[in-house]
């Protein structure tokens, strides 16, 4: 250390000790600021200030004054600080009994002027009403400081000491600074309180609202999801990607079966900045299996500068309104029928169906008064047992004749709550019981109507490629519709059995079909199977068979009824499609090979060059006649190794280009496949003056996959990435390939380039058929990539990377028995 430094240091030390007030002020400010910030309200903040100022400055009494409610006078309190001596209490009590208007006394003066005031000796001051009390306890000097929040005095603090003191500017400044801190903190606290009370209000509004309200930020993360929303959508805010919402919450188009397109969901649209009005969505989930209708309005949320920050939707349950709408619609349809001269039976049946649609399990019948005016006639009862219809038809009307008969007789509305107990039904009790008009109605109806419908079903079945059949397991007999007999190749006279029917099943699938059949019979449950039928003369058919068991009233198995659908045509086109897909995939691999010409040439040329060189060298050495046998052996060994290397290259190419019928999956380490693939294209990477960086997760689980297909996926992605960076200067032609384990359950591979990126509106468009931004290429590569990944049970996505370029990432499920790690 130089002499001068030492001097400087000394003088520095000296300055600090010579100016203790600065240190004092800072420490006081720091302590108070921290404590005030921690204080929960104005009272405890004032307490801190009074206490600390007295402790640090030696003033003995600190009082606080706050304006009353209507701000006409200052009142003493809520806190004060006395330094020890009991005598001071008298002055404090005197102060606590005082009020000061603006300008009056020390507090009033400070309040009015909004700045500090100093009194050297309060007993000599003309404007100090508490003079007597002060004189009694010997207080002399006083200082008053305003605490301002904005331009408003929220409190005045005053300090006293028992000696006359001349105004100390420095001290006033210290306390004023402290007061300013307190003012700021209180201002913030007030704002916070206001905000939190606003939040509480919002919160309570949201939770008491009948409408569902959902707020999400621009990433689609839910910020609010009120209880009504949880009720409406069956569950709370699950943090899933917005494209999963339709699936997650059971959102459908008005046809009730098509999942709502994720990018058209009101919340998604409002996050995009659109105003959404009156979109109707059908919601169905476990909590609402019948489904419900909701009408949704959405608005984008914007930050202070108008930038999009998210979206909010309000959803109203309009199920009842919808029911009404449908009711009106059906009603008008019935009216139309009447207008169109439909038969009475048709109109009445429609009316009954319309009524029955109003509630689950509701059964209706319409009876009309006979022309004699004394009996009822059957009108319509499509869902009531035939026995009931038959028994009621022609019954007399009268004062105790069931509900309809009585209503007709009395010419007024009759309501019967329970047909089994109501006196009006006394004479028809038996009928009601027989027909199980309460609990057992459903089963009764099925059995009774089954045969009645036979003809109708047969008719319907004839027109579709549908076979209708019944198997009676006990009797080992079966019945089949005419169409079914044709489909199964049975003569129309042949008595059928279960074994005959099952005998038509393709031998490869027969055991499985038998097992499914036995399972259904054992559990009295459902039977479902897709299999081939082998017909006489060797013809094959693909069919889907569905059936269910019916029980008699004692719960034992009665019969198995079902349908068989001929799907040979669909199957044929599916197979055709499969072949086409394989053709496409093969073409893509051949095209990839074409794109990789540089790598292919290089990979082959290297070993061939080495072989030629070694052979030529050996010949020369031999010509010179001085060849060392060890060297010759070495040369020959190298030639063998290089021929093998060339062979490997050719094998690799053939594997990639071969039309492989037998695609066998094996456990693969994707890190190793990536390394192999990069080796295959290394020359193209070098020639295109690009760099590929890899970041491998060594705990990556193995996946079950067809090696060549995964290589094809990677080649497509890498060649695309190379094309994407081509237009960049060489230094920026970077491609990043990384892998990571997703909880050990699947392996993710990401290929990211720093090129021009994907279409902004819909990055996923790149997976569509024939989408291409390139001059060459069919636009099939990525479609094939996606189909390969999906057949492996995985998923591939594309997005624009945050700063520049595109990122493709796919994940494949971990191979069974490898949910953890198994790095190669």
């Amino acid at each position: 250390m130089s002499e001068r430094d030492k001097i400087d240091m000394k003088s520095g030390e000296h300055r600090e000790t010579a100016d203790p007030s600065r240190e004092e002020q800072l420490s006081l400010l720091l302590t108070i600021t921290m404590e005030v910030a921690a204080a929960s309200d104005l009272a405890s903040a004032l307490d801190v200030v009074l206490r600390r100022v007295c402790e640090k400055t030696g003033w003995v009494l600190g009082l606080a004054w706050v304006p009353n409610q209507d701000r006409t006078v200052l009142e003493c309190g809520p806190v004060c600080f006395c330094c020890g001596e009991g005598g001071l209490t008298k002055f404090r009590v005197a102060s606590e009994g005082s009020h000061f208007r603006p300008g009056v006394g020390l507090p009033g003066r400070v309040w009015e002027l909004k700045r500090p005031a100093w009194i050297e000796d309060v007993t000599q001051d003309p404007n100090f009403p508490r003079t007597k009390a002060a004189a009694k306890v010997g207080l002399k000097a006083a200082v008053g400081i305003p605490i301002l929040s904005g331009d408003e005095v929220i409190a005045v603090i005053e300090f006293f000491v028992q000696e006359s003191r001349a105004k100390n500017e420095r001290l006033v400044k210290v306390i004023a600074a402290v007061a300013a801190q307190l003012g700021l903190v209180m201002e913030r606290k007030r704002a916070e309180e206001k905000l939190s009370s606003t939040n509480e209000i919002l919160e309570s509004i949201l939770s008491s609202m009948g409408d569902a309200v959902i707020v999400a930020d621009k990433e689609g993360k839910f910020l609010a999801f009120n209880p009504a929303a949880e009720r409406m959508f069956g569950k709370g805010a699950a943090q899933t990607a917005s494209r999963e919402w339709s699936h997650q919450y059971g959102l459908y188009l008005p046809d009730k079966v098509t999942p709502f397109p994720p990018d058209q969901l009101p919340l998604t649209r409002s996050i995009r900045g659109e105003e959404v009005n009156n979109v109707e969505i059908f919601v169905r989930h476990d909590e609402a299996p019948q489904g419900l209708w909701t009408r949704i309005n959405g608005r984008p949320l914007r930050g202070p500068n108008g930038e999009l920050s998210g979206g909010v939707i309000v959803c109203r349950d309009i199920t009842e309104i919808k029911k009404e709408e449908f009711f009106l619609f059906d009603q008008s349809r019935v009216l139309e029928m009447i207008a169109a001269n439909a038969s009475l039976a048709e109109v009445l049946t429609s009316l009954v169906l319309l009524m029955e649609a109003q509630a689950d399990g509701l059964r209706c019948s319409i009876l009309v008064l006979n022309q004699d005016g004394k009996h009822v006639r059957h009108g319509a009862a499509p869902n009531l047992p035939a026995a009931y219809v038959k028994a009621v038809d022609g019954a007399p009307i009268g004062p105790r004749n069931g509900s309809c008969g009585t209503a007709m007789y009395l010419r007024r509305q009759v309501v019967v709550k329970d047909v089994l107990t109501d006196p009006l039904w006394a004479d028809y009790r038996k009928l009601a019981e027989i027909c199980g008009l309460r609990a057992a109605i459903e089963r009764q109806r099925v059995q009774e109507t089954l045969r009645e419908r036979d003809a109708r079903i047969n008719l319907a079945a004839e027109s579709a490629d549908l076979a209708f059949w019944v198997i009676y397991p006990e009797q080992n007999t079966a019945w089949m519709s005419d169409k079914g007999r044709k489909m199964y190749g049975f003569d129309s006279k042949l008595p059928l059995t279960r074994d005959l029917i099952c005998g038509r099943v393709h031998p490869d699938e027969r055991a499985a079909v038998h097992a499914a059949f036995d399972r259904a019979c054992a559990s009295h449950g459902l039977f479902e199977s897709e299999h081939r039928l082998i017909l006489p003369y060797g013809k094959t058919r693909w069919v889907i068979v569905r059936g269910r068991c019916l029980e008699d009233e004692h719960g034992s198995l009665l019969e198995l009824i079902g349908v068989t659908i001929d799907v040979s045509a669909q199957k044929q086109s599916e197979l055709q499609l499969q072949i086409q897909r394989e053709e496409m995939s093969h073409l893509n691999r051949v095209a990839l090979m074409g794109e990789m010409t540089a790598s292919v040439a290089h990979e082959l040329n290297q070993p061939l060059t080495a072989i030629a060189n070694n052979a030529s060298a050996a010949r020369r050495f031999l010509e010179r006649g001085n060849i060392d046998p060890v060297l010759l052996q070495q040369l020959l060994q190298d030639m063998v190794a290089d021929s093998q290397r060339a062979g490997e290259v050719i094998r690799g190419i053939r594997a990639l280009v071969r039309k492989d019928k037998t695609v066998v999956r094996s456990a693969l380490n994707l890190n190793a496949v990536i390394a192999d693939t990069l080796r295959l294209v290394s020359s193209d990477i070098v020639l295109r003056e690009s760099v590929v960086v890899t970041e491998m997760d060594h705990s990556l689980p193995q996946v079950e996959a067809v090696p060549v297909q995964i290589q094809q996926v990677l080649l497509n992605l890498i060649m695309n990435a190379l094309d994407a960076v081509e237009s960049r200067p060489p230094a920026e032609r970077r491609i990043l390939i990384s892998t990571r384990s997703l909880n050990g359950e699947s392996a993710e591979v990401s290929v990211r380039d720093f090129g021009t990126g994907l279409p902004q509106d819909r990055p996923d468009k790149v997976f569509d058929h024939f989408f291409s931004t390139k001059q060459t290429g069919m636009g099939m590569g990525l479609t094939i990539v996606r189909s390969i990944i999906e057949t492996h049970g995985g998923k591939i996505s594309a997005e624009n990377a945050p700063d520049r370029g595109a990122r493709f990432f796919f994940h494949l499920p971990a191979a069974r028995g490898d949910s953890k790690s198994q790095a190669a």
Partner: protein
Amino acid sequence: MNNSNESAEVCLVDDDSSVLRSMQYLLASDGLAVHAFNKPEEFLAHAADHPVSVVVTDIWMEGVTGLEILARMCAISPRPRVIVITARDDLAARATAMAIGPVAFFIKPFNDEEFLATVREALTQAKN
């Protein structure tokens, strides 16, 4: 066979080690002393403090662009005679390479006699 160049050294650069070794044998079979480098940086480091008269190099190697490596070789002082061997025939690359300075351009696999003759000629020229 002329053995007067026996002592003269040819530098060989190729990142494919089996090709590198075979080239080494080929040149040695013609009685030429060879100094082989698997990485272009290693050669450039060597050239920084040893005079190099002839260098036979691949131009497409990992980690460095072809023309960059050529430019750096031709910047060595005194300037060596550069013979390019490459697995890829690329007219643009060939033209650019010749403009920068190489004396010959061979596509793998190449004619051994022609190649050796070119190397010898380069060595003779370097001597004069």
